[in-house]
């Protein structure tokens, strides 16, 4: 193993490899920061460039892209309330309020540092758990996947603070929207209303662009003003304060990284769920915060950012070990491996171990490189929040619509983005969380697929969810999460009573 690590380091430290890594990181940062593009698009677009490369060079380029995307995505999440990629959506909850308070630099500093450290934790975990991970992932059969998805949705609804019912409602609407289109199990096209564009289902990218990017522009246009409510203090906020905050709140970063690694390793669940679960766990761990979550608590930036970068290492565990991609991004990466004649699985780990370690070293170096770039430019990036809304709205709207169109080059996707923008605006207006809607949309297919598979395997016996220990555990966690607001209230009341008694 040590020998393979040395070969991995040797592969990386040549001029060509370093240039590839820097190019990959730059592309990852750019694609991560521009809403609607994301790492999957970047990895897919770069595949043709790797044709003439050695396998380890292709891996370095792809590693650079994958490691830098989340870091880039956090910048637009904090500054524009528009997640560059879906996993950065949780960062907007506290990152954007911090930007509005003129602390964009601190939020970016904390986000980038948490991303780097989370990424490194994820990569270390990748190396450490490969031998045992197979057993853990195999514990998840359809009933467990179904319960995990339900638990994810409820936990995220709870993390909407005082909007639990509204979070559940938007989650259900997200599931309903997810039902539109071809149902793989039976081959039936459902709820498409005869519109050919909807027969393949609502595409995630235009829906997310509409829901997060354009709806925010509509909201800004209706409200007026500028993104930063206190633009005068932007220059005062220092990026280094954010870096310090991560080390001060190291436990938040570690817990987030743990979530990212574990959830990332569960195929199909991915970084978005990891980031939101990490965020909701942070909210639950901190019942009496100094600054309320959702109103600019720095820990609300550290938790999701550490998770969504740690998931890169985690999602590579099933990809490399079993050939099961942990995310869309790693699914495309899997294609690159196969294109270069590398067969994932035990064979890769035994016969091509140096390649695995080349990827590990490339991911580690590029996540640090991307962070250094963001930290160096954060001051200038933060200036973006001072831009008047009337410059930002038309430019971001047009770029977002091009992004919605670009992935599938389908003009109907632009219309879908607009429809979701209007839906998203009404959600903002009436304070209905968009996050649960998004997660449900992402998890909808997976949830239904696992529900149906469970029913088929167990002859429609619903009690199966109550007879398997992991499924029951997840069910109990789901029920407990729904009672959490009441529990939190009681804890707060008890604390207040104690404080009152102590002050007497």
């Amino acid at each position, binding site marked *: 193993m040590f020998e393979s690590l040395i070969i991995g380091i040797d592969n990386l430290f040549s001029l060509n490899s370093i240039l590839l890594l820097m190019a990959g990181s730059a592309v990852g940062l750019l694609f991560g920061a521009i809403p609607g593009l994301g790492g999957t698009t970047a990895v897919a677009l770069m595949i043709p460039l790797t044709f003439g490369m050695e396998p380890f060079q292709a891996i370095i380029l792809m590693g650079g892209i994958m490691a830098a995307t989340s870091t880039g995505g956090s910048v637009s999440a904090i500054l524009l309330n528009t997640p560059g990629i879906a996993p950065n959506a949780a960062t907007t909850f506290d990152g954007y309020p911090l930007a509005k308070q003129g602390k964009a630099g601190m939020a970016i500093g904390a986000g980038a540092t948490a991303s780097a450290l989370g990424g490194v934790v994820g990569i270390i975990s990748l190396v450490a758990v490969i031998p045992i991970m197979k057993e853990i992932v195999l514990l998840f059969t359809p009933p467990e996947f179904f319960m995990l998805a339900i638990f994810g949705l409820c936990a995220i609804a709870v993390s909407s603070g005082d909007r639990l*019912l509204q979070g559940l409602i938007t989650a259900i609407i997200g599931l309903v929207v997810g039902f539109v289109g071809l149902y793989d199990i039976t081959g039936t096209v459902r709820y498409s209303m005869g519109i050919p564009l909807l027969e393949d289902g609502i595409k995630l990218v235009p829906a997310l662009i509409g829901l997060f990017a354009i709806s925010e522009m509509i909201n800004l*246009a209706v409200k007026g003003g500028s993104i930063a409510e206190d633009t005068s203090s932007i220059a005062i906020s220092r990026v280094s304060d954010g870096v310090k905050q991560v080390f001060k709140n190291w436990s938040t970063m570690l817990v987030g990284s743990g979530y990212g690694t574990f959830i990332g390793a569960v195929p199909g669940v991915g970084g978005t769920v990891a980031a939101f679960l990490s965020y909701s766990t942070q909210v639950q761990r901190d019942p009496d915060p100094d600054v309320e979550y959702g109103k600019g608590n720095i820990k609300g930036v550290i938790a999701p950012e550490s998770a969504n970068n740690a998931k890169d290492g985690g999602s590579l565990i099933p990809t490399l070990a079993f050939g099961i991609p942990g995310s869309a991004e790693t699914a495309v990466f899997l294609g690159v491996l196969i294109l270069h004649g590398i067969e994932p699985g035990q064979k890769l780990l035994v016969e091509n171990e140096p390649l695995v370690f080349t990827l590990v070293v490339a991911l580690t170096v590029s996540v640090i490189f991307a962070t250094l770039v963001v930290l160096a430019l954060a001051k200038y990036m933060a200036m973006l929040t001072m831009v008047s809304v*009337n410059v930002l709205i038309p430019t971001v709207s047009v770029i977002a619509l*091009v992004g919605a169109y670009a992935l599938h080059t389908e003009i109907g996707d*632009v219309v879908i983005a*607009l429809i979701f923008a209007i839906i998203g605006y009404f959600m903002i207006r009436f*304070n209905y969380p968009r996050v649960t809607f998004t997660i449900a949309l992402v998890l909808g297919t997976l949830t239904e697929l696992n529900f149906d598979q469970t029913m088929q395997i167990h002859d429609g016996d619903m009690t199966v969810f109550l007879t398997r220990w992991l499924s029951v555990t997840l069910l109990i966690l789901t029920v407990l999460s729904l009672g959490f607001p009441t529990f939190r209230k009681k804890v707060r009341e008890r604390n207040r009573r104690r404080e009152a008694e102590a002050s007497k």
Partner: protein
Amino acid sequence: MKLIPEHRQPTAWFLLAILLTIVGFIAVSYTYKPNDRAFPLMVGYTAIPIILLDFLTLTKTKIGQKISVFFSAKTPEQIDQDADTTERSLGKEMVVFLWMILLVLGIYLFGFLPITPVFVFCWMKYRGAYSVRMSLYSAFCTLAFIYILFEIVLQYELYAGILMEIYGS
């Protein structure tokens, strides 16, 4: 709507629209085979009591208060205090929607590249009251960015508009 305070009535209408959508969804679900509708129906029927509970939290009733406290640990009044109080007139919203609809319509008719500078210029000049020079500068910077990134670097063929498809070649 006497049970619901005036400031919560727009939310009640929004909730009603969601309820009607869900009822419509359930009705459409019954047109599919049992295997295709099992899970959608489960989701649809779960939605109705949740929507009704949320509806109750908007009312000035004791049960509404209790539901609100159980699910959000706050009374409806406390939630009102934390809510965004920005004045949002329907007219203002409709004007912004219209701008966005015109943008999408423009893209559909004329394509991305001609509409981008026109939209950015018009918005900045007429909504932002920027100078012609500044508006033109921003319009062409945005166009250059989109053209260089998408058409040249990424080699996407951006949509050229339905009119170009009909009359272009």
